């Protein structure tokens, strides 16, 4: 039972922005199975918080058996995680879900991340060998953007215009006249909605990583569904489980 819940150890923790933290976890053999776009469930040590927090995998270091998560402190659970120092134990389950597909070398791809949807794009950027334009959208404070530069051309958009294009990621695409065959994106739903429309308009293949509140993280509880265009094979209704069938879906199969 390779992907069981296990107690791991924090290798390092670093604050990247006001409320964004980066944690490397010594996670053992489970990292061998992990791929870009997958996530792990992280469990609180406090008994008042029972549900795991699903956090996307930002980087995988297979030789070292380590993985990195970059997450925002949005509540008490993630705040607890942010206080873990080196050597602290951390309970995780994963890797979970289906990540981004592989892409042939001759394609050109937009990798688009918005806000706390940026981290999973880093491992994806590392793993893809094709030509990549990396577009990152922020409210104001930048994080991780410099780390992307090793893997492709990086374009930034900020809502307040304090860095890069003023506006959203698609404003950056337009500002720079970028072109590609394919889009892979993760971020807030309004951004994904706009990207889905953009991809349709430009007849581009498009993969979106979705997010929803989860309970089990393994496909049993049916909490984290998204609406689908067709009746799903498993659910027999118009929805799919983000944790198990996703979080990455083909844009045309989901209704946002």
């Amino acid at each position: 039972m390779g992907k069981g819940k296990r107690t791991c150890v924090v290798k390092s923790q670093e604050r990247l922005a006001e409320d964004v933290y980066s944690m490397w976890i010594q996670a053992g053999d489970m990292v061998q199975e992990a791929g870009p776009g997958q996530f792990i469930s992280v469990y609180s040590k406090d008994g008042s918080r029972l549900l795991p927090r699903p956090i996307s995998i930002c980087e995988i270091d297979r030789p070292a058996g380590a993985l990195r998560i970059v997450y925002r402190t949005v509540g008490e659970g993630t705040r607890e995680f942010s206080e873990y120092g080196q050597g602290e134990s951390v309970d995780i389950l994963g890797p979970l879900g289906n990540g981004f597909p592989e892409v042939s070398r001759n394609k050109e791809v937009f990798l688009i991340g918005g806000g706390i949807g940026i981290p999973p794009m880093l491992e994806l950027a590392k793993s893809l060998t094709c030509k990549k334009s990396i577009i990152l959208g922020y409210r104001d404070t930048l994080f991780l953007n410099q780390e992307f530069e090793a893997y492709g051309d990086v374009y930034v958009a900020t809502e307040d215009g304090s860095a890069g294009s003023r506006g959203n990621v698609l404003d950056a695409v337009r500002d720079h006249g970028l072109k590609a065959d394919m889009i892979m994106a993760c971020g807030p739903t309004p951004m994904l909605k706009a990207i889905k429309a953009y991809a349709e308009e430009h007849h581009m293949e498009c993969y979106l990583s979705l997010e929803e509140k989860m309970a089990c993280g393994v496909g049993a509880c049916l909490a984290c569904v998204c609406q689908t265009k067709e009746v799903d094979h498993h659910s027999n209704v118009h929805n799919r489980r983000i944790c198990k069938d996703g979080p990455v879906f083909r844009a045309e199969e989901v209704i946002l």
Partner: protein
Amino acid sequence: MRKTSVNIAGVELKNPVMTASGTFGSGQEYGEFVDLSLLGGVVTKGVSNVPWPGNPAPRIAETYGGMINAIGLQNPGIDVFVNRDIPYLRQYDTRIIVNVCGKTAEDYVGVVERLAGEPVDLLEINISCPNVKEGGIAFGQDPKAVEAITREVKNHAKQPVIMKLSPNVTDITATAKAAQAGGADAISLINTLTGMKIDIHKRAFAVANKTGGLSGPAIKPVAVRMVYQVAQAVKLPIIGMGGIMTAEDAIEFILAGASAVSVGTANFHNPYATAEIIKGIEEYMERYGVQDINELIGAVR
């Protein structure tokens, strides 16, 4: 060898630990973590005569020591269930308990009749889901309605019938007695307490359905109280549930009068919870020299 098996309406479970409907799918997902053959029984996600799409997301929210859910009984319908989920569960040496939901008495009867020829051990009739507009809890809060639906289901059921009761009532013994009067073979309780969470930063309801069912260890004292009250009020075997996280919790329900227990929210916190609870019950029996778990049922009065 200590005896851990219990009997629910003539069906022997190898141990008293089952899963709580809606938290364990039909076993496929948690089968990756727990050998389902260890379990006393698997209680499936509620199934209806036709596929149900459920409620809009967000469907769950964490609360202090628990969670609220408003899944809305999404399920693929009885046909897919019979063709896919029952054969899956048949691979394991465990009892199959199918949770049945519906919007009308006819809906329940339709599912129950469809299951008559299937290798299903027990039926659990969900008349207590707080998250669907029709059926569900509307049947479960009025003793007369409980008695009527129980009788109707019993008239068509081939397998023994467990009526699953709602805790959102003034007097749980009234609905329990009504289920008994209607011919129920067993009672399971508690379903979730109706709850609400508001996100003060977004100034919005945390689940799209506004209200949801509160579960988890937070509600255990309410569940234990109701199991105890029902155990004093009716002669039917009781399946106790509501916040069982550990073997200690399971034993508390058994001492209060439950013949078996269902583990729900705990699975989300610990996918191995059911197996660990089974082991922990055996350790408790060992420690206190309990030869037969049936000695513990309702032992605290």
